[in-house]
């Protein structure tokens, strides 16, 4: 055994020397790493897009302004990457140092040359056909970058680290058991030395959790359970064994405040979804936003938007962290447009409820009281014969990212104006099968439409851009005074951030079920967004009119 090994080493030695020699003469950016400091300071590096929502505050705001209101009409496709794997592409690409990292359905990761779209490497983890995806499509929404690795989760519930240069596997660890419905569709969030990974599976009656892994080794550092055991704080909001199958999936990517050392993560709906009789109580911490100590995984505070939810209005929507004056004094806030049709402002140090306003039609709550608890309208629970309620099951918004313009202090929310008939039925927990207790039938009529709505910090409506059909696309805002989004009809478009007026649109020929992002190379700004089964990247066509002004 030892002889061939020695021989191989000898043969490789000159090569290693050559590589070391190259490394020694390359400029620093040629072998750039992505240390935590780059992630935490990403606002200073607008050419890159280093985390799922653009920065730790989840603003999804590009500080690039080379594409602006005066030239956005010249936006044209620069290149298109066709995944060819079938299925929906819901990824937000990341870009660092000229390389774009994307996820293709169900769990394949690819690195593309961001200049041309040409593929640099691809890793298919080989998700078995029989992998369960109960309650969601076979998608992957993206990766996380840290140091020399690309982190992602697989549909069959493994967390993996790939080498950023080659796509080779560094480590692979199981997060949960897909045979009972645990899966990963969300992009992880990388922080200092850790990878935070959420899971899917609430519709299978999985008990939700959020994990932290050592970025270097894959060792699990902590697990936060979204549903407490009896005796733990919140455990008294469940009866009997219902907590064991209580849901509360963590299926989107949260936000992070490095100064406070807190992660902010939205938690999913209780299980079974539509039959609440099987789980009396408020069902904490389902449908809540939680603040978790990044070092220990301990719960700092929680705020429950929809106690004892029976409409599948989970609270996984992206929380946006904002520092602003609030009623006369500077305050660290977290804002969130919830699936339940209310927009919320909370103090992110304490979880204190500050304000809620209705941003989309709803017929289930009279109002939100001074503690942030909804005052219910009677008779709006799902029923055997069906109950008509606004918003629909998919909610007034859903996983489609909002964007926050820190200059205007506007939150741009992809909105769905739609009702559903909600039905209730029996549900019996059987591992690895749907645990639902009912269903919905959507109402599609003249009152059904979509919009991008611009909300001021207090929740008041500044403008709306109306779409033909309810929103399914995320939104990105830019320092070029633009707001980008898409439609399920296949449009990709740009709006004036001040007025909501449409300034540019492009028909991509496939539903836009993803959020846009932006990056720059060699001084040129690009916009990327997935549509259909492809990733589109747009840049400015040559200037035809020299008179253009920003």
């Amino acid at each position, binding site marked *: 055994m030892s002889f061939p090994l020695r021989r191989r080493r000898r043969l490789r030695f000159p090569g290693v020397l050559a590589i070391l020699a190259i490394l020694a003469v390359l400029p620093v950016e040629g072998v750039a790493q992505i240390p935590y400091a780059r992630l935490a300071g990403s606002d200073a590096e607008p050419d890159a897009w280093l985390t799922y929502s653009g920065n730790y505050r989840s603003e999804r705001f590009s500080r690039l302004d080379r594409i602006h209101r005066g030239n956005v009409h010249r936006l044209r496709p620069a290149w298109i990457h066709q995944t060819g794997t079938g299925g929906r592409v819901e990824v937000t690409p990341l870009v660092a140092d000229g390389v774009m990292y994307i996820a293709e359905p169900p769990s394949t990761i690819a690195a593309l040359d961001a200049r041309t779209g040409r593929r640099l490497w691809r890793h298919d983890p080989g998700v078995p056909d029989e992998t369960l995806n109960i*309650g969601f499509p076979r998608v992957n929404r993206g990766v996380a970058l840290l140091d020399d690795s690309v982190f992602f989760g697989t549909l069959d519930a493994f967390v993996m680290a790939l080498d950023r240069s080659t796509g080779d596997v560094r480590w692979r660890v199981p997060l949960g058991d897909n045979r009972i419905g645990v899966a990963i569709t969300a992009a992880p969030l990388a922080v200092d030395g850790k990878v935070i990974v959420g899971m899917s*599976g609430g519709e299978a009656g999985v008990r939700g959790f959020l994990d932290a892994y050592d970025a270097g080794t894959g060792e699990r550092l902590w697990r936060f359970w979204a549903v407490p055991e009896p005796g733990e704080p919140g455990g008294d909001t469940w009866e009997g064994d219902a907590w064991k199958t209580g849901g509360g999936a963590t299926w989107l990517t949260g936000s992070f405040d490095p100064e406070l050392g807190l992660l902010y993560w939205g938690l999913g709906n209780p299980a079974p979804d539509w039959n609440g009789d099987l789980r009396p109580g408020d069902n904490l911490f389902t449908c809540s936003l939680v603040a978790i100590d990044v070092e220990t995984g301990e719960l700092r505070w929680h705020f429950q938007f929809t106690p004892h939810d029976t409409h599948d209005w989970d609270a996984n929507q992206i929380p946006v962290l904002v520092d602003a004056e609030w009623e006369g004094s500077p305050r660290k806030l977290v804002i969130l447009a919830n699936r339940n049709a209310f927009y919320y402002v909370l103090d992110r140090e304490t979880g204190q409820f500050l304000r809620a306003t209705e941003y989309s039609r709803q017929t289930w709550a009279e109002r939100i009281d001074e503690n942030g608890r909804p005052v219910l309208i009677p008779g709006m629970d799902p029923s055997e014969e069906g109950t008509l309620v606004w918003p629909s099951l998919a909610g007034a918004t859903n996983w489609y990212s909002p964007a926050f313009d820190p200059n205007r202090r506007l939150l741009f929310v992809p909105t769905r104006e739609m009702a559903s008939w909600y039905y209730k*039925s*029996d549900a019996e927990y059987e591992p690895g099968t749907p645990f639902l207790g009912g*269903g919905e039938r*959507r109402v*599609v009529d003249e009152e059904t439409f979509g919009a991008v709505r611009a909300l001021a910090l207090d929740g008041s409506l500044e403008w709306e851009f109306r779409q033909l059909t309810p929103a*399914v696309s995320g939104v990105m805002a830019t320092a070029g005074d633009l707001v980008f989004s898409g439609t399920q009809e296949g449009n990709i478009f740009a709006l004036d951030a001040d007025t909501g007026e449409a300034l540019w*649109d492009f028909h991509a020929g496939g539903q836009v079920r993803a959020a846009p992002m932006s990056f720059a190379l060699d001084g040129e700004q690009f916009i990327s967004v997935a549509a259909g089964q492809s990733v589109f990247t747009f840049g400015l066509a040559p200037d035809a009119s020299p008179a253009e002004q920003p």
Partner: protein
Amino acid sequence: MREEFRYPGRGAPIPALLAALILLPMGAAAQAPEEQGRRLFEVHCARCHGLDGAGGEGPGLRRENLRRATDAETLREIVDRGIPGTDMPPASSLNTQEIGAVSDYVLSLGVVARVELPGDPAAGRELYEAAACSACHLVNGEGIAFGPDLSDIGLLRGPAYLREAIEAPEAAVLPRHRTVRIVEAGGAEVMGMRVNEDTFSIQILTPAGEHRSYRRSNVREVELLPAESLMMSYAGQFDEGELDDLVAWLASLRGRDDAMTGEPE
């Protein structure tokens, strides 16, 4: 984490949806398989294939032979795994028994009984030609293609629907074929059938058979006229016996008799 399903488009016939609302029974185990299959179909399939399986954004399933599902086993596989490269998703939230029930229900949709109708199809055919129906409809490739192709209308629609479509065509217009009135920038009005639309544009087919595409921002007005059809009403033009004949002729149209012989796609 039910991450919203596919939106069925503007095409779902709302009055029909509401009219057809059926009690969702409690518990799957207690129901007969055919009832269970229908229920599952309504929840999981009807968004695209129509509440009655006649098609919508997805293809109609009320056919004796489904193009891809050539036998019951293949159909089950398609329901289970979806059709890669199309919008047909796998029914990943259904168990094997439920997949069987919904597949059997889909197969049952293709069995459209030939009911005995009072009219005379041959006389109906003469009326069809005399009334110049072929000026707007195709039957087995003959006629002018503007309204729906009627070659297999007897499979797709029942006699009551066909009678209503003749007398009150506006009630029979599928939402995706709605009549649209457009006022162009210069003030000219154009009527046509909606062919497609999105947030920024709309495409119509004019009665002259011409496709027109408009940017919403470039026209004065786009008005959908859900209560109007580009087909005139034939109410009062036929007596009862003639209507029976015409319906009998249409009901007899069950697909091209000169079976198409192209290569499968």
